[in-house]
């Protein structure tokens, strides 16, 4: 889309109206995944492997089946029966293997069987009647150990073509990219630092556990209600796993209690459908928190080596990174994303990055907010900070000196369009936080972060009512207030008040395919489609006005919610408001609707810069975040309050990842902390207010200039906090989380 087509003056966009679902959510009547029932409903429960790696020798379900309250029991055999789609391949096979184990249990918590019973208690009791004989196998949960020659093989033949010969079979994908000559670049440097960094797996930690209500008949027709970030992928995947036609399964997305990438796939939904088909009754499954932590996707853990060369004036001469990501017992760890994002903020002559996707005996990783990017940024931004410290340079000035700009060839290949990194760095430099004095024991850190952002398949419809109100149907579940943003964008185009627009997250039977709410794509892609659908409706409104006035349609323009005669006909007729056109629409040609569907490709990449102050208690090793400022390019903030919310939420999750959260596995390969008491996410008393600065460098690929804002906010925090803590403690922290024992060990190691 050409820049001069873009709108820059707004009536509704940029205001902060109350969200349309606010009342439902503050009164408790919003319906989330677990909040619905159906007549005749059964309750499902899932039996899970207690072993990290074990061959399933035998499953005997006869005692459970004999229980009088049990109406169905399923195992993997109930998914193999796919009448017209025999043999699943690729990711469908992986997902099936994950939702119900086949020959082997691959991690602690892997589903092996499920029951449906007349009460939740009966279902749980019946699980104890299922007998599973396991042959326990050697396991591995650490990424470096999983790559070692003697590591147990998770699955032979899982590697794709990209993996170089001679690597362990647990290495399943390989990525390498870059440009220039890094060795020559390092030779030009005045200082080269190479260091090793480790991050642990963390969970998205959405407060709502996965929940669904499924109904599937022997006729192959089904209904599914579930909390998901994308119900079309649920529809497609469940249909494939159950062997039914996609269109025969209608999926409705409930209100969703957080996702952050973790609800972009299926876990319990195919199981509930299989139980329902077998029992011929609706089945509801709700996960417990420990099931969420043991068996749904955490993020990948990482082992990384980063080497950067710098001249005395701060110019980076070369950068190189090796990023090994462990993503559980299936391919999918985003080592490629880590590699591609790691150096993306910088204009580098010589850069090379390598990413590994490594399998281990852990749950299948799922996307978590800018998947892969925060780990790489932690390593890279830490090395840059150390270089600045040794060379006596200001960390913002050095980043400005090397910052990517419009026209820069990105480290991962393409040439940047208009981007806003420099603007975030300038805003950071000018922010009072950056020059505020620090108290003894405190340290300040800054870091930059990058995320691609995504477009994706998108379909939106808008229908006008006789009274001039509008209903907008979008297909991307609203995780953080997106219905408000959609209504603002539609109001802007239609010229009717925000309050007159009702936005609905349509089910799969109502719209064509919509990609998941991920990739920071909703405000960008569904927003773009909303604008186009509204413009489509405006075209029809203008046609009706032209017909009424008897003038050519191109002599009618749309202004402030009215059709207005223009050109030679200007002033010939009074402006015709939308509601007057819709009042007559039944007699002037029928209903007026607008529609748009496409796969928009112009999602502008996004950058942010964070400033953090941390205080380290040398006695206990506890770190307190005393001040935090997020500065990020939003392109155009449609509803600034929810943009701020995304920035703040990303920072808070980053603080948890940096300081406290980690998956802890015992020697037996079992997860040691599968409850919130032990997997402790930040609470209100852990955090300060999180200040935000919204930078607006319009994205040329969106009519209003929107860039996605959801994910970039979690990219800088790990590094910014590590830099602050390292400055406060006087010792470089290279492993996350920087929990009190690790800080104490580092302080001790430093003498």
């Amino acid at each position, binding site marked *: 889309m050409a820049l001069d087509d873009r709108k820059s003056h707004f009536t509704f966009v940029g205001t902060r109206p109350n969200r349309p679902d606010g009342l439902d959510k*503050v009164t408790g009547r919003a319906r989330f995944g677990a909040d619905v029932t159906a007549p005749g409903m059964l309750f499902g429960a899932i039996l899970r492997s207690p072993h990290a790696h074990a061959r399933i020798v035998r499953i005997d379900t006869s005692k459970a089946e004999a229980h009088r309250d049990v109406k169905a029991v399923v195992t993997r055999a109930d998914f193999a029966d796919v009448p017209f789609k025999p043999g699943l391949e690729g990711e469908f096979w992986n997902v099936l293997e994950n939702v119900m184990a086949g020959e082997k249990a691959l991690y602690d918590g892997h589903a092996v069987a499920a029951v449906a019973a007349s009460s939740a208690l009966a279902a749980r009791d019946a699980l104890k009647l299922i007998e599973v004989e396991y042959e326990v196998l050697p396991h591995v949960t650490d990424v470096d150990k999983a790559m070692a020659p003697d590591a147990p093989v998770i699955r032979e033949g899982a590697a794709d073509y990209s993996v170089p010969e001679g690597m362990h079979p647990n290495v399943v994908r390989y990525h390498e990219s870059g440009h220039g000559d890094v060795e020559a670049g390092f030779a030009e440097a005045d200082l080269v630092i190479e260091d090793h960094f480790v991050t642990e797996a963390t969970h998205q930690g959405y407060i709502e556990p996965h929940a669904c209500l499924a109904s599937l008949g022997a006729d192959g027709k089904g209904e599914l209600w579930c909390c998901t970030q994308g119900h079309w992928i649920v529809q497609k995947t469940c249909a494939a796993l159950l062997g039914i036609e996609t269109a025969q399964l209608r999926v409705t997305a409930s209100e969703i*209690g957080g996702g952050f990438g973790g609800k972009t796939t299926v876990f319990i939904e195919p199981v509930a459908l299989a139980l329902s088909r077998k029992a011929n009754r609706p089945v509801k499954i709700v996960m*417990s928190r420990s099931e969420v932590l043991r068996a749904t996707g955490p993020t990948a853990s990482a082992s990384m080596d980063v080497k950067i060369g710098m001249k005395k004036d701060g110019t980076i001469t070369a950068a190189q990174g090796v990023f090994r990501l462990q993503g559980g017992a299936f391919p999918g760890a985003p080592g490629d994303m880590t590699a591609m994002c790691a150096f993306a903020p910088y204009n580098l002559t010589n850069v090379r990055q390598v990413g590994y996707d490594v399998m281990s005996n852990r749950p299948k990783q799922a996307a978590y907010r800018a998947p892969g990017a925060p780990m790489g940024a932690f390593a890279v931004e830490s090395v840059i900070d150390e270089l600045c410290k040794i060379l006596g340079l200001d960390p913002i000035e050095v980043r400005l000196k090397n910052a990517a700009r419009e026209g820069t060839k990105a480290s991962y290949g393409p040439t940047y369009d208009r981007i806003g990194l420099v603007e975030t760095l300038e805003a950071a430099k000018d922010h009072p936080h950056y020059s505020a004095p620090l108290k003894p024991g405190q340290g300040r850190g800054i870091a930059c972060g990058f995320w691609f952002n995504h477009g994706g398949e998108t379909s939106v419809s808008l229908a006008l009512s006789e009274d001039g109100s509008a209903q907008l149907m979008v297909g991307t579940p609203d995780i953080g207030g997106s219905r408000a943003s959609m209504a603002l964008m539609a109001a802007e185009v239609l010229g009717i008040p925000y309050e007159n627009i009702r936005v609905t997250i349509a089910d799969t039977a109502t719209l064509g395919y919509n990609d998941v709410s991920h990739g920071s794509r909703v405000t960008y892609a569904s927003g773009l489609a909303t604008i186009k659908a509204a413009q489509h409706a405006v075209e029809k409104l203008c046609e009706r006005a032209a017909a009424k006035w008897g003038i050519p349609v191109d002599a009618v323009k749309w202004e402030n919610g009215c059709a207005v005669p223009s050109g030679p006909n200007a002033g010939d007729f009074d402006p015709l408001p939308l509601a007057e056109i819709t009042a007559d629409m039944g007699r002037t040609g029928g209903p007026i609707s607008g529609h748009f569907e496409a796969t928009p490709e112009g999602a502008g990449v996004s950058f942010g810069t964070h400033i953090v102050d941390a205080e380290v208690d040398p006695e206990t090793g506890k770190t307190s975040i005393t001040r935090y400022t997020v500065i990020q390019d939003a392109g155009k903030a449609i509803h600034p309050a929810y943009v701020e*919310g995304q920035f703040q939420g990303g920072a808070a999750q980053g603080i948890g990842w940096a300081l406290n959260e980690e998956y802890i596995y015992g020697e037996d390969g079992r997860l040691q902390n599968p409850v*919130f*008491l032990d997997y402790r996410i930040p*609470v*209100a008393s852990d*955090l300060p207010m999180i200040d935000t600065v919204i930078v607006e460098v319009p994205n040329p690929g969106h009519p209003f200039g929107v860039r996605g804002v959801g994910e970039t906010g979690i990219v800088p925090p790990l590094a910014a906090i590590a830099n602050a803590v390292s400055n406060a403690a006087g010792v470089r922290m290279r492993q996350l989380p920087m929990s009190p024992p690790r800080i104490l060990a580092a302080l001790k190691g430093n003498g």
Partner: protein
Amino acid sequence: MTKHHVTTTVNGDTVEYLCDARETLLDCLRDKLNLTGAKEGCGTGDCGACSVTLDRRLVCSCLVLGVEAEGKQIETIEGMARGETLHPLQRKFIEHAALQCGVCTPGVLVAAKALLEKNPDPTEEEARYWLAGNLCRCTGYDKIIRAVLDTAAELREAS
């Protein structure tokens, strides 16, 4: 298995249910009384999404047995508004955009109401420590704390 007959008061209404001795108050509110505003985020008393008051005391309803509600006064999120008038906390949460996904919101509101009844003029630190039992993964708590302190100020002015 024999079930227990429980008579209790929820949001001023006398209610009765039959429950298994193992069922929690949260199970009973949600599955027997169809009051699904309280959520189960953890089932172990760590997230506060199931917060209700039991004889005016703030509790995690997942840690209270259904049978323990016998003869008690329970207040849930469903009883917070008076008719069509929202409680000031509910209104301020909407105005401050203090929710994103909203699944923790009922518990946070119930807990915040209990705070303001106990302490009408909390400091930021007091509000943060009181709400430390209510996990929110979306907001970073910033707007939640602002909404609570703003409500407290408004209620003080009104009284």
